[in-house]
């Protein structure tokens, strides 16, 4: 009975094993299937009313954790218990991080949230105008990340500077924008 039940379960472990051996396509398939089975979990677990953080964000955080901790899966154990143990941990973690405060440190999340949090009510055209008020590097970086939707790493490659410099410029740009907004309400 054991060997016959749930053929899909073995497949997922098979995909993960192949992924850990360096097969990119199998890794993508594994992550897609993992994401699909995590979505329901995330919708049911995530407490409502976390500003700027929804179930799909949690799915992404779990996928990143799965990726970072993929070496802790023992290749002879079933995948699901391992996957959902990580999912539970990240769900609790998300509530701890996002549940109590609205402001999120941008450097923690700039990689995952390429778009500026929409708390300002700015439209894209307004945004372009505000961004034009910035100068030099901050303007290039904020344009690339917030308007064109590039990631930190892509922006760094494009501008030929380090990701750290991109973060700093991005942070400065956002700060300057916030100050501009306060001056002209």
């Amino acid at each position, binding site marked *: 009975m054991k060997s016959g039940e749930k053929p899909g379960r073995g497949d997922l472990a098979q995909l993960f094993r192949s992924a850990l051996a360096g097969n990119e396509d199998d890794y993508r398939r594994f992550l897609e299937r993992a994401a699909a089975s995590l979505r329901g979990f995330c919708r049911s677990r995530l407490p409502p009313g976390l500003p700027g953080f929804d179930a799909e964000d949690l799915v992404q955080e779990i996928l990143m954790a799965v990726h970072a901790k993929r070496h802790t899966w023992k290749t002879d154990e079933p995948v699901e218990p391992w996957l959902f143990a990580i999912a539970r941990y990240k769900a609790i*973690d998300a509530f701890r991080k996002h549940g109590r405060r609205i402001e999120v440190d941008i450097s923690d999340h700039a*990689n995952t949230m390429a778009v500026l949090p929409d708390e300002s009510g700015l439209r894209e055209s307004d945004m372009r105008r505000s961004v034009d008020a910035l100068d030099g590097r901050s303007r290039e970086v904020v344009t690339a990340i917030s308007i064109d939707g590039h990631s930190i790493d892509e922006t760094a490659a494009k501008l030929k500077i380090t990701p750290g410099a991109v973060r700093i410029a991005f942070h400065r740009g956002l700060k300057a924008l916030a100050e501009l907004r306060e001056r002209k309400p």
Partner: protein
Amino acid sequence: MRTEDLIARLSADGARNPAISVTSWRWMAAGAAMAAGLALFATLGIRPDFMSALGSVWFVFKFVLSALVAVFALSAVRDLASPTGSGRGMLRLAAPAVLLVLAVAFELSATPSDRWVSLLSFSNGATCMVVVPLLGLVPLGLFLYASYERAPVRPALQGALCGLAAAGFASFFYAARCTNDSPLFVATWYSLAALVLVALGAVAGSKLLRW
């Protein structure tokens, strides 16, 4: 970022670096033993009557007890470093605890009650409480680091168990220096010293072992 893009990025990275290597527990245990052992031999050394003391049951008992704590606590640390770790290994830690309680009961029944306080030897106890935590610092750091490389889902518990394992290693070596072999002394001072490392580990774990 869309989830599809994230998955594409992660799978590309996974293909580039398929294997994440982590330090093995074996090496961590060897490192912990070396650190605690070298620190003891380089500073206090072993007790002068070490060879003749080997004939005493209670002297040998200290090594047995601390070795059991070290081995069982470290195997629980190893188990719980995985997100699916059950923590059932922690139950085995009851064995050294029961052994110690039985030894104390046996000792007290064989000792007149007016001599019980002298068994405690407060000044040596104070030394024990300082030296054992110091000897355990490097082992604690190593076990916390090994846990950090993995994926414990209960950070404070993981840190506390790292502290207990470190206390096992430290006590094993300090036992060679300490001239008090009374089970009552061990149950009191070694336990308090272990508690210092457990508390330290729990605090450090809850701060450092988040991922």
